[in-house]
């Protein structure tokens, strides 16, 4: 199959890569761009380990053709930290034991990032529903939920004080 040159906007950078049109985004990220943080856990979109954000929305990169996502901003786990400063979610997962084997962690964090961007104070039910497409076999999810709660707490502490006009 003939290769073509495509431009992907990933983690704030433009990456140009030559790929066959049938290559899936997950493989291009992992094999061509060395962004191996996105994981393959299944072959049928059941596990969510390959989740990336497309214009801020979580999507499974194992279901997506790389050529079709040249106009959108792609965020992978490698783009979540701000330089060496971890995102509150990353800190939460580290501190509360949300990452045991760590294989589902990138997908979990990206999915949670999307949720908290829309809804900074989710109920337990909202949190459970948001994360229900990301499977984990280690944690029973209890410490993952605690990790997201911890991130919410950290974000609250970091938020600048509002100055209200009198």
């Amino acid at each position: 199959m003939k290769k073509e040159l495509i431009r992907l906007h990933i983690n704030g950078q433009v990456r140009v890569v030559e790929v066959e049109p049938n290559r899936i985004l997950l493989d291009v990220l992992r094999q061509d761009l060395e962004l191996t943080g996105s994981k393959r856990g299944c072959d049928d979109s059941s596990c969510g380990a390959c989740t990336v954000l497309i214009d801020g929305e979580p999507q499974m990169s194992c279901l997506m053709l790389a050529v079709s996502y040249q106009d959108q901003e792609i965020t992978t786990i490698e783009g979540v930290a701000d330089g060496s400063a971890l995102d509150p979610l990353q800190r939460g997962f580290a501190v509360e034991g949300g990452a045991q084997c760590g294989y589902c962690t990138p997908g979990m964090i990206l999915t949670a990032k999307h949720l908290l961007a829309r809804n900074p104070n989710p109920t337990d039910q909202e949190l459970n529903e948001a994360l229900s497409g990301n499977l984990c076999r280690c944690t029973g999810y209890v410490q993952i939920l605690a990790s997201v709660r911890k991130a919410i707490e950290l974000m609250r502490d970091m938020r600048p004080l509002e100055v209200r006009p009198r």
Partner: protein
Amino acid sequence: MSPSSTIRPNSGSIIGARIPMVDSVDKVTGAGKYADDLALPGMLVGKILHSPHAHARIRSIDSSAAERLPGVFAAATGREAPVKYGILPVGHDETIFALDKARYIGDNVAGVAAESEAIADQALRLIRVDYEILPGYFDPEESMLAEENLIHEDRPHNIEKDYHHHFGDVEAGFAAADYIRNDRFECAEVTHAALEPHSTLARFDADGALTVWSSTQVPYYLMKTLAATLQIPESKVRVIKPLVGGGFGGKSEVIPLELAAAVLARKAGRPVKITYSREEVFYAHRGRPRQIVELKTGVTREGKLTAVEARIVQDGGAFCGYGVVTILYSGQLLNAMYDIPSVKFDGYRVLTNKPACGAMRGHGTVNTRFAFEQQLNMIAAVLGIDPVEIRRRNLLQAPCTTVNGLRVLSYGLPECIDKVAEQSKWKEKYGKQRFGKGIGIAGSHYVSGAANPIIRAQIPHTTVNLSIDASGTVTVFTGASEIGQGSDTMQVQIVAGELGIPVERVKIVAADTARTPIDLGSYSSRVTFMAGNAALDAARNARQLVLAAAAKKSATPIDGLTFDEAVRLAISPNETLTATGTYSPPASAQGGKFKGAGVGPSPAYSYSAQVAEVTVDTETGEVHVDRITAAHDCGKAINPVNVEGQVIGSVWMGLGQAVQEEMVWEGGRLMNPGLLEYRSASTLESPPIDPIIVESMDPEGPFGAKEAGEGSLAATIPAVAHAIYDAVGVWINTLPITPEKVLKALEEKKKT
């Protein structure tokens, strides 16, 4: 005064501290590398051809067309490496690729290495295999009667191994019983389904040295098996374990792709990586076997156990794997939980034409424990004894040795029972809630490593080396395998705690057979107890060496130094001090002398008690688990976050087996080889789980610690089954407890 006592003891604050795992930043940033994340220049994609038949003689294989396909660098069949192997010395019955017969759907028949996945797939389709289909065996109770077409010719009646144990006087025990029960229990086959599919990258250097990066729990055994099957010296084989995305036992023996990658790399002259598809992971399996338990228990009127007799049949699949150990655990660990004066056990590990079973979290104990605890709850119901109370009446008087020779020192079960009963408000709820709501209790236990190694070699079970430089930085070299359970963090905490230095000053190099000393692997929950003890021993030795060197170099007598002060005196900038520590279980923990006595003995046992609360929908039969309260005696929690994580994870995996998970077979074909079809629970099916840490301070554990990663799994299943009984009055004795089974039982109950 001994030299070590002149260093100020550490405050101990790091032991028991809730610090993040030492590799957590790698995991939350995506920077950490798992086997499939690795790539080498010129690397090829390896693929395996699997048998489409459950039992078939291979008349011939022709891979020449595949080899001629442009882009294919190697094809290999059974003749390439015919040396038999297996994780147990008594079970060397596998070859890398099938030699004469395919023994299950999915059996490995040939392999190819090609430039791309597409070419490799195409090459597999060009391999011609001439099969002569043989009758298959899929049910263990039928397979045991087989006279011909045996799965392995040297295993009459397809029985891999049978054991017949008799401890104490069972006849007298039953004669003394006021009440005797017989029940049959059946547990479906389940599998680990770790989220990371198995992956192996193999490279041969020009000088014939082999390096393998693999998703393994047992780098040392893998190194030995690679050397044996490829017939190269062990000194030429290096196994490196990168991050592992979950094991649960599924990576605790050598998996065919690990050897296939190496064989193909040798033939191709290029690095080869094989990563299983999810379907291949299901067929690679090595999970918990289907098990049938016929259990007979006798008790006095007061509920005191007098005798237990178990007949256990396990459906082992086509190869031995860990099977001999699995069947032995299923009998041996009837003991060491409660005080049982006499025990009879007949165990049969049976071969069938399905993927081999193996070790899975709670190895061998889980299904037997379900049967035993369920029957104990049935007995309590008949005798009108509170199920919490019947357990209290049958406690061991530790320290003690059981009738089958298991030494129990620390025993936190009584406290576990008390804690869960109190926290769950047992007394206010049991038998007192509305129809459809129920509460149940059960217990479980597990080994903290096997006291007898798989390989009967006179080596320590673990060795840990430390190197200390003049800056006071300590590097831990350990063979122990971090698989997400916190192995690295545990050792760093122990070394930092013993030396009284911050964890940030302790680095760890782990699980690389060329650079780290021997550790037998991450299985049978051995790491905290064994690698932890070796790390502690190494740290104590390091302290002594540092102090002795400091004393030699100091003009004035030294006393009361911190570790750092001693290091400044002892180690000059161009020096490195090294120390080593080991662990071998004491002879007193190694069990009896009878056939099969080697499996079951452990230097320490963990204990768990759990209360499950459920709501049963009597219209649909659906069981909704509302909450699990789980108390686990881990001796001492080196890191409570990680202990809680292990306990919760075990409970959750037990819940899966209790109500959702099952490998569904049609003959030799797996009908649900996907994570959704296998019904791995999402957040929406996962209840709150409240862990309670009980610290019994084991006298031989490092800082008192024992295992935390497996022992809680088994109690969950009978606790849920018991809660269902409390809710709607039916006992379900087959797993998983599906809505169909609950409805059927409710209908039958209505009839009577």
